[in-house]
């Protein structure tokens, strides 16, 4: 498993930071005192959950799982 949980966490954290920033930027256009802001916050929360779910669960299948540690040796053998 080449990718560590730490790396995944860092990536997810970056995604959440970007979302937080967007929420902050949205306050310039959406009044914080109206229920409309809840839509924005809700979207952000759902996205954060989605991103975390993707990175930690779904993307596992895209990762390189059973990578042969003796890769180079094995491959190099083929050329004699």
């Amino acid at each position, binding site marked *: 498993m080449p990718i560590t949980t730490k790396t995944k966490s860092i990536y997810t954290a970056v995604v959440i930071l970007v979302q937080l920033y967007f929420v902050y930027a949205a306050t310039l256009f959406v009044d914080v005192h109206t229920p409309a802001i809840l839509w924005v916050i809700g979207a952000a929360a759902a996205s954060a959950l989605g991103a975390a779910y993707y990175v930690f669960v779904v993307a596992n299948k895209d990762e*390189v799982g059973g*990578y042969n540690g003796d890769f180079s040796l094995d*491959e190099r053998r083929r*050329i004699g």
Partner: protein
Amino acid sequence: MSQYGFYFDKEKCVGCRACEVACQVWNDAVQTVKWRNVSNVIRGTYPELTGVNASLACMHCAESPCKKACPRTAISKNEDTGRVTVDQSRCVGCMLCLWACPFGAPQMGVKGRMEKCTFCEERPDGKIKRACEEICPQQAIVSGRIEDLILRSRQVVAERLSYDKQAEVILGHEEK
């Protein structure tokens, strides 16, 4: 399901590059893009020199790093023959595959898409030789199923043992 590959005998290769050109001629590749490359290395100072030639093309790896590195899933591995090919219509020419490949095999074509050895797609496996193998004057390249190639290299070592007193010159497949 079987895996085909190349066997290369560095003791036979004289670095003439006929394999490169045979590949270009058979596959109608552009004259500057080479799917198979011969490199020649000389080390040491005169007159104590060692040198070696290696003819390298795609190894059609069992677990192809290029396939896993492609962001467009343009590279696929044939289940029956194990050959790894690039889908030209999906490729975007980002060259990540070259970055990933341990052998530097994928080549940027003149048309901006990656090209690589197709293991002579048209040639029926096991029936006739690949173009590079067919042309090689010294028959330094042999293609075939990996299991057969391993057997072959063991045989080469065994033949060598029959006359060679120096054990350290024996090269080839070592037991794991």
